[in-house]
């Protein structure tokens, strides 16, 4: 792969005696949506956190847009945004205030219309000026997604972005993911949903025991022809179930 946006080599991460990542290698291409699948505890969230610099790897290296996460952490982190399952939003600040801060910290121009558009797409326009604490769990998660899509970064890491979303919001999220991909942004998603994966992914990885057990490219994914059940069987087989 020439000029990958993310290049990870020999990543290892242990929690005590439990090995979660075992020498994992990963390259991500620009403008590509990659979905990571695997059973609970397979290391999907750990992988995303390590790639985001949110968690230190015990061994191995990560480079984002040719900037080493170990040697130039601030430069590397500035090129990505990571949305965890429970993103750390400030409970007493509003979504609009978060957006203003995000743009200020990242040296971006304030984009009130873009914020309005994204919030409308995820049906949050009416709560833009409400504190995060006044929103439901699902709405707070969508608020974090709005902020992530607002950030003008070449790499987005989303941990289970569909979790807790209603059907309409989930469809809107798919459209936003496709739109970002078309603008050249690379997205790495951790997910359990076969149908959503087939709808947006250019590549699917199945993690098993801290290593990539299955790597399906766009052609292989198209081969399923939208058959979510068939895809699930392939994933289950890779997981060893």
């Amino acid at each position, binding site marked *: 792969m020439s000029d990958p946006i993310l290049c990870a080599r020999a990543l290892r991460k242990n929690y005590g005696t439990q090995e979660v990542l075992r020498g994992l290698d990963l390259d991500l291409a620009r403008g590509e949506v990659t979905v990571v699948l695997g059973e609970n505890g397979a290391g999907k969230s750990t992988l995303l956190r390590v790639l985001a610099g949110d968690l230190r790897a015990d061994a191995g290296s990560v480079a984002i847009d040719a900037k080493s996460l170990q040697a130039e952490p601030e430069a590397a982190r500035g090129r990505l945004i990571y949305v965890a399952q429970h993103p750390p939003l400030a409970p007493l*600040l509003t979504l609009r205030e978060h957006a203003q801060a995000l743009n200020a910290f990242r040296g971006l121009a304030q984009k009130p219309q873009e914020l309005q558009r994204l919030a409308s797409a995820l049906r949050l326009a009416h709560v833009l000026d409400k504190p995060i604490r006044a929103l439901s769990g699902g709405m707070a998660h969508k608020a974090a997604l709005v902020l992530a899509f607002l950030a003008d970064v070449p790499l987005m890491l989303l941990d289970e972005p569909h979790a807790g979303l209603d059907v309409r919001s989930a469809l809107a999220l798919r459209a936003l993911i496709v739109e970002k991909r078309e603008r050249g942004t690379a997205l790495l998603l951790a997910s359990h949903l076969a149908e959503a994966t087939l709808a947006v992914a250019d590549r699917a990885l199945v993690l098993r025991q801290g290593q990539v057990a299955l790597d399906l490219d766009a052609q292989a994914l198209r081969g399923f022809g939208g058959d979510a059940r068939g895809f699930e069987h392939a994933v289950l087989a890779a997981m060893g179930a």
Partner: protein
Amino acid sequence: MLPLRLTRAAAPVTHALLALAALGVGLALGRVLALEAPRLRPDVALRLAALAALPLPLGLLRLLTTPPHAAARRFLGEPAPELLARSLRTALLWLLEGLLIPLGMLAACRLWPDASEDLLRGAALTALALLLAAGLGTAALLLALRTVARGPSGLWSSLTGGGAFGPAAAAPLLYAPAFALVAALVPPALLSAVWGAKAALLTPQVLLLSLLGAAVLAFVLALKEIEQARPHLQEALLAVEEAHAMPFAQSDQLPEPPRWLMPGQPNALLHLLARSWMRDRPGSWLTTALLTLLAVVLVRRPAEPLALALVAASIAAYSFVRVLALERDPVHAAAFWLGAPPPDLQRAVLRLGLGLSLPALSLLALGLLTGSLLAVLLGCLAGLAIGLGCLRLPTPRLRSALPLLCLCAAGAAIALASSAGATP
């Protein structure tokens, strides 16, 4: 059923620190009373009793309306009355620790034997105020919880004017501690008036009988209210939880930080931190100012160097711990996630911490007018060292208790340092 233990906090250590603190405060109050002119002592004793009793209803408000780990305990199946009973046991411990304040005042009799009779009366007034504040505070808060569960009542609406402050449903809870404190101070005020008019009437027997009567009254009222509130507690706690989860939810205007907190160039990061902090703790700078005012008043004129140094140390440690609290605020993690560079974040936290401590630091300057600059400087350095030491303490609760311990050490030192030269 085995008691559920959901915390690893070192409770015995915290209670030991609080007990030590109460003794220190008692010694300091005893010193204040002993050095006052005899004709003014009844009034001063009443004020000190009010000051000592003030934290109890406020602490009860927090303990009874938002019991620790309430959601987790409810999820695990613990009924609300048992949850409240646990909180009441903690409140009883607080009361016992609080009663070490009058004991500390009695201990001051050894330092000022000539004032021992008045110190005994002052200690009895303080104990009376503490007992009544605890008992009436518990009863008033349980009554308020019952009101919250059953909907608005005419009595509360007439007392609170409809409760325009905060969520309407929780309005009685905001007023209950104040009513309890005022009611608790009526008997000490009457006894203080008797003391002022004819001190000979206020014998130890009268004081003992008053104390016993107050204890019985307070506990009977509290127990009666516990029984009556029992069926409504679950619903009341849920209503309070809901009110807490929705602050400003219906408001169009969210509070902004005051301008004095952010002098100079506009700084997005500082503004973000200050905004979140002030919405969460709107009175935090006022608390600092009041605490410092109290410290400066305790120093008195002329300030002893040792006492001044200890007060300075406690203020510096308090400010430092406030900076630590800023770092634990969820907005800190949010700012980092939004892309704030870590060095800028550290600088902004430090700057805001200093800004929040500004009232304390400026009031400390008043202390400088009456004392030695060197003592204040050394005290501040010691306070910062204590604050740095805080970083190594294992639990947040211990980190929070340390400045309190410093204040008490300051109080005790004021008493001890001035005992040699004091002339009652």
